[in-house]
């Protein structure tokens, strides 16, 4: 061997080859992430259960979520994306009895229902962003989410799910919608420091090229995870591939909370139930309630800017009532205000251009696991209400005219 063992490091280290390896490594990671995430890698996806959610330090990426859709939805099917919060996520409903499974059963093979609702999210988070990003790829789509009457949506998303909105926006995947741009600009000006804005944009643009979020999510899901979380605090489960964890949601049916409610929690929940509508209404005379005009105006402005106009009509916002276990404690006067708020709330969403309906008016206490979340039985009732609405919308948009000729 003609290499001198005493040669300096420069003779052994090849900077150009090293740089080539560095670039090749980055390109290989980025390409792998693009290909894998685009086609989807979540087998038997049910929903983003705790172990594959931000609660366990797993932040699903936009492309990963789009990949889940691509892996399941044929071009001839109507895509139904579910967004919103823990109620539509199906908290308290086991994976095989969750409401979105029932919705899929009721809608049949012409539709594909995908549950992208997250705990603590708003109707403008997660699923809403994915639906907008896939508007050309899956033009036959309906987006379903939930809200409380006159609760403001957030056009720029809510933490910890806001990163999905920033990714889509910074990658140029969202519509250029002036009313939303205005609201986002206001939000950035008042709530996000300039340095943070640069940081978010820089990280998103770097990720658009290098796809590090997609790559390491894929590694974490398929092979090994690298971050400890309160849900996986101990070794070795902390590093197990996320796919090893099954969707093990608590089952409200085994112990409904209305049977275990203490006086203290009932009192707290009653405060929330009353606050649901009292904030937005004022008394006009001895026997009537009137919505505060500023509540209507403020809601309309934000709701109009939350989702682009062409996507609003195919967005169904469900206003969910609280459990009758708590509602029965309201006075007749408070009940009248509650009823009016749901009626006005749905009208406000419609005035902003969306489809909207309420659910829960005829539900029983056993349909709820707590104040707002549904048991499997309540989920079946919700699925029936939503299925009827979705079918009507699909007919209105002529989605049903496309023949079932495409086979996967």
């Amino acid at each position, binding site marked *: 061997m003609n290499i001198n063992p005493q040669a300096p490091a420069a003779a052994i280290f090849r900077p150009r080859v090293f740089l080539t390896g560095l670039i090749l490594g980055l390109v290989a990671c980025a390409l792998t992430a693009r290909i894998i995430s685009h086609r989807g890698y979540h087998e038997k996806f049910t929903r983003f259960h705790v172990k594959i959610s931000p609660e366990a330090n797993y*932040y699903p990426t936009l492309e990963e979520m789009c990949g889940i859709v691509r892996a399941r939805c044929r071009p001839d099917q109507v895509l139904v994306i579910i967004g919103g919060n823990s109620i539509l996520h199906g*908290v308290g409903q086991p994976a095989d009895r969750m409401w979105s499974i029932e919705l899929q059963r009721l809608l049949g093979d012409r539709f594909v229902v995908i549950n992208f609702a997250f*705990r603590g999210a708003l109707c403008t988070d997660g699923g809403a962003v994915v639906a907008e990003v896939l508007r050309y790829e899956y033009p036959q789509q309906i987006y379903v989410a939930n809200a409380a009457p006159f609760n403001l949506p957030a056009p720029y998303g809510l933490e910890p799910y806001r990163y999905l909105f920033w990714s889509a926006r910074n990658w140029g995947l969202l519509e250029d919608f002036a009313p939303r741009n205005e609201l986002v600009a206001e939000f950035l000006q008042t709530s996000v420091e300039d340095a943070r804005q640069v940081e978010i944009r820089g990280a998103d643009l770097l990720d658009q090229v290098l796809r590090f979020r997609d790559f390491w999510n894929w590694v974490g899901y398929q092979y090994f995870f690298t971050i400890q979380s309160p849900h996986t605090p101990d070794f070795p489960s902390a590093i197990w591939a996320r796919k090893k964890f099954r969707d093990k949601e608590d089952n409200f049916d085994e112990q409904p909370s209305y049977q275990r409610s203490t006086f203290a929690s009932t009192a707290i929940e009653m405060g929330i139930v009353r606050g649901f509508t009292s904030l937005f209404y004022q008394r006009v005379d001895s026997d009537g309630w009137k919505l505060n005009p500023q509540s209507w105006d403020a809601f309309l402005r934000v709701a109009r800017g939350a989702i682009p106009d062409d996507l609003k009509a195919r967005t169904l916002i469900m206003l969910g009532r609280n459990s009758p276990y708590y509602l029965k404690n309201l006075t007749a006067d408070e009940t009248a205000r509650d009823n009016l708020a749901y009626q006005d709330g749905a009208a406000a969403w419609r005035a902003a251009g969306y489809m909207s309906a309420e659910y829960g008016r005829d539900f029983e206490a056993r349909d709820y696991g707590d104040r707002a979340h549904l048991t499997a039985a309540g989920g079946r009732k919700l699925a029936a209400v939503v299925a009827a609405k979705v079918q009507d919308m699909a007919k209105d948009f002529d989605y049903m005219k496309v023949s079932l000729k495409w086979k996967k």
Partner: protein
Amino acid sequence: MEKITIQIRQHLLSWMGPMFFSIISLGAGFLIALVLHYALYRMGLPSKPFIYAAF
């Protein structure tokens, strides 16, 4: 025969030397790329996990 074997060995070693160090450099570059890629992923994650509380 022995002379030929020695010649082949010398030739291989002189050829393997630069090749070997190139592979090592390439591998090191690849490894650093992987570490850098992972660091970018970790830096983008929030320092505290999200705690969901139903209300």
